């Protein structure tokens, strides 16, 4: 009996191996995997260029993840409909996007990269720190550009560490610092309570905030608490922070329902401080309205993108084109619930700039022209912000403006209060 079993297993392995060998046929490795134009890199032909995205399209971060693809598809859908991008080498190419779901799992992100790198010109727009980090070193080794990714992790903007990379959104430190500076300049005494996400996102914001208020004697941080991104409630934290009677809350939170719940909970406790929220959880419609943010003396956020929900931009040409592109080319009929939709649209515009300038259809040529964009105001950008890829150590967008909620949308502010 036992013997017979062995036979079957060995037989099965032999069969599998034989099939595998016959399937793969002739072996050997073809190093030059380029397709299309002569001398061109992978993923670019005389008529097309293909971009790869690995981003969460299922699971807890699928909401913003879907947006990182939708904006990109909307932008290039519209460009392709007009014929395509006129590249610096004189050829006009259509831009194709291959997006894959990694469910915020680093292992799957690496797997997606392994699969995509054989057919795409560059990786772009993907959301997430661990997922982008999972294939960062492989991308460097393979010389595949991994650019304008959606993470505020500063390593992606360090040219020495990451020669093939460039972050798009401001680092978390940048955003936290902007608010810290505004607060420090108010001239009044403030007691600040901090609630931050227990990961590089929250830590980056807090680090930036502290940098911004460094040396300001009018600011005292009275309590710092954290929460986990998987928590269902932060009531206990808010209760504890309310006990400090701080007049400002610095809330580095990336989870939509928790942001709403925090705003609601503090009101229930009759604690009404001024409130800071990061750029990705400051949506007027999705967060501030259900959180009844008008009850607070001020809700502040930082931004570089026009909020399409805001009545102030309802008639804005950029916003109108953006929303119709989103509907027509990205199959995203709703009002964007996350700013990532606007950001990835700007990523598209920035890539467009780099494409227009690149003289040869190679990845090296692309990286060179991408790192040479200055004072470019992408569509949807707020006044006072721009794309600048020439500063080492900074992502493509490093300038943000601080804004204050006015009941329907946001208005840029110069002073706190």
């Amino acid at each position, binding site marked *: *009996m*036992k*013997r*017979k*079993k*062995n*036979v079957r*297993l*060995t*037989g*099965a*392995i*032999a069969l599998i*191996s*034989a099939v*595998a*060998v016959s399937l*793969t046929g002739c*072996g*050997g*490795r*073809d190093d030059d995997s380029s397709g299309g134009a002569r001398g061109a890199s992978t993923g670019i032909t005389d008529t097309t260029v293909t971009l790869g995205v690995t981003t969460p*399209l*299922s*699971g807890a971060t699928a909401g913003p993840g*879907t947006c990182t693809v939708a904006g990109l598809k909307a932008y290039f859908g519209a460009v392709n409909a007009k014929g395509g991008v006129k590249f610096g080498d004189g050829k006009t190419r259509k831009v194709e996007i291959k*997006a*894959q*779901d990694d*469910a*915020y*799992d*680093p*292992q*799957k992100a*690496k*797997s*997606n990269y*392994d*699969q995509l790198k*054989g057919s795409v010109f560059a990786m772009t727009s993907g959301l997430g*720190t*661990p*997922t982008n*980090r*999972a*294939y*960062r*070193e*492989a991308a460097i*080794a393979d010389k595949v550009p991994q650019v304008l990714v959606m993470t505020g*992790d500063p*390593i992606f903007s360090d040219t020495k560490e990451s020669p093939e990379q460039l972050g798009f959104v401001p680092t978390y430190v940048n955003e936290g610092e902007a608010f810290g500076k505004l607060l420090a300049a108010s001239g009044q005494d403030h007691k600040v309570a901090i609630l931050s996400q*227990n*990961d*590089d*996102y929250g*830590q980056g914001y807090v680090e930036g905030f502290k940098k911004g208020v460094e040396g300001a004697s009018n600011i005292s941080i009275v309590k710092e608490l954290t929460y*986990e991104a*998987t928590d269902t409630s932060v009531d206990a934290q808010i209760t504890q922070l309310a006990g400090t009677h701080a007049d400002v809350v610095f809330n580095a939170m990336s989870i939509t329902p928790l942001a709403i719940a925090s705003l609601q909970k503090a009101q229930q406790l009759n604690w009404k401080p001024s409130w800071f929220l990061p750029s990705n959880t400051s949506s007027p419609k999705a967060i501030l309205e259900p959180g009844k943010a008008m009850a607070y003396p001020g809700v502040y956020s930082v931004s570089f993108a026009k909020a399409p929900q805001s009545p102030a931009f309802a008639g804005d040409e950029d916003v109108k084109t953006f929303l119709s592109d989103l509907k027509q080319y990205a199959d995203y009929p709703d009002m964007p619930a996350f700013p990532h939709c606007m950001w990835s649209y700007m990523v598209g515009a920035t890539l467009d700039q780099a494409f227009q300038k690149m003289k040869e259809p190679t990845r090296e040529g692309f990286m060179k022209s991408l790192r040479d964009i200055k004072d470019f105001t992408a569509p949807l950008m707020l006044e006072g912000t721009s794309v600048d890829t020439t500063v080492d150590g900074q992502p493509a967008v490093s300038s943000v403006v601080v804004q204050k909620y006015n009941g329907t949308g946001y208005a840029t502010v110069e002073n706190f209060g």
Partner: protein
Amino acid sequence: MSLATGLLSRAWVRWAITAVVVVVLFVLPLQLDEYTNQNLARIGVFAVAVLGLNVVMGYTGQVSLGQIFFVGAGAYVTGYGASHDWNIVLVFVASVLVPGVIGLLVALAAARLGGLAIAMVTIALPIVGVPFAKRLSDFTGGSQGMSSAFSNAPGWTGLYNDQWQLYIVLVVGGAVFLLIRNLVRGKYGRAFAIVKDNEAVAASMGISPYRYKVLAFTVASLIGGASGFLYMAVIQFTSPETMSFGHSITLLASMVIGGAASILGSLLGGAYYVLVPQWSNDIDPNLTELLQGALLLLTLLLLPGGLATLPRVLARTLRRTRTPDPSERRQTPSAPPAPGRASVEETPTVGGIPAQSPTERQEQA
């Protein structure tokens, strides 16, 4: 069929086949393209993880929802050791032993509890493991994770990285599979099976259910650590996300889909873990969850015993269609409902379901 089996049962034929397999496995990485090599290596990583889960769950019948924790722990130890330039053998030993010791300690306590309580204690491992890994950020790199390129091909080999990594997986994974195959087919395997079947009977036979549960759990965590070593060798990156609870659940599903208590099933389970997300991405990246759920249900509806039972189910279906003998038809319903058990039939029949469910259900009453 019988001719082939007859031929295969001769010793020299089996040796020849084994030799051919070894040669093929040696040559294969040199012949395949990079992506295929990487995918095979990934399958190997998770096949080892599923194998570990099979030892404690498939063979010994103790529900474990924490296997991914040991994979993550092994990966962290590997990354830490490699970044501190430990000797590679030391790195491997540590990456297996550290999760093994944690597993042993947890098992010493958890094995005292009955059925579902073990499940809850093991569920805690990944759930507490994620914030714990963040807290130990000096060792783990915190939420940004850690990279390690220790498994890049050394210059003298003249190999590509993917080929070298696949060799690492083949050697380590192959060794683990052989060891476990011998373990579950020997004295220990029989003891595991009796413990799974009925603890009271086991005790009356002088087999301590407690001791064997602890043993199975510890072996599973050692293998989990080995899988973590391979994870770091192949993915070259780990972060707290690696051991998130959802992946543990997927490992469990992969084990059942591949075939519980089956060596071949573990291999197929690893393939399922890696390939299905890729396929669902190829069909529609926006519908991955829907497609994965549908495929899982479909597979189990067709093959309740897992993919490893496919040949047997096919053979039965063929036989049935060829000879529409009513007497055989009538027999089928009374056949064991879980053909997945077939691959361990040389052990005293395990998990014969009718025998198990009454006790199980009474415990819950």
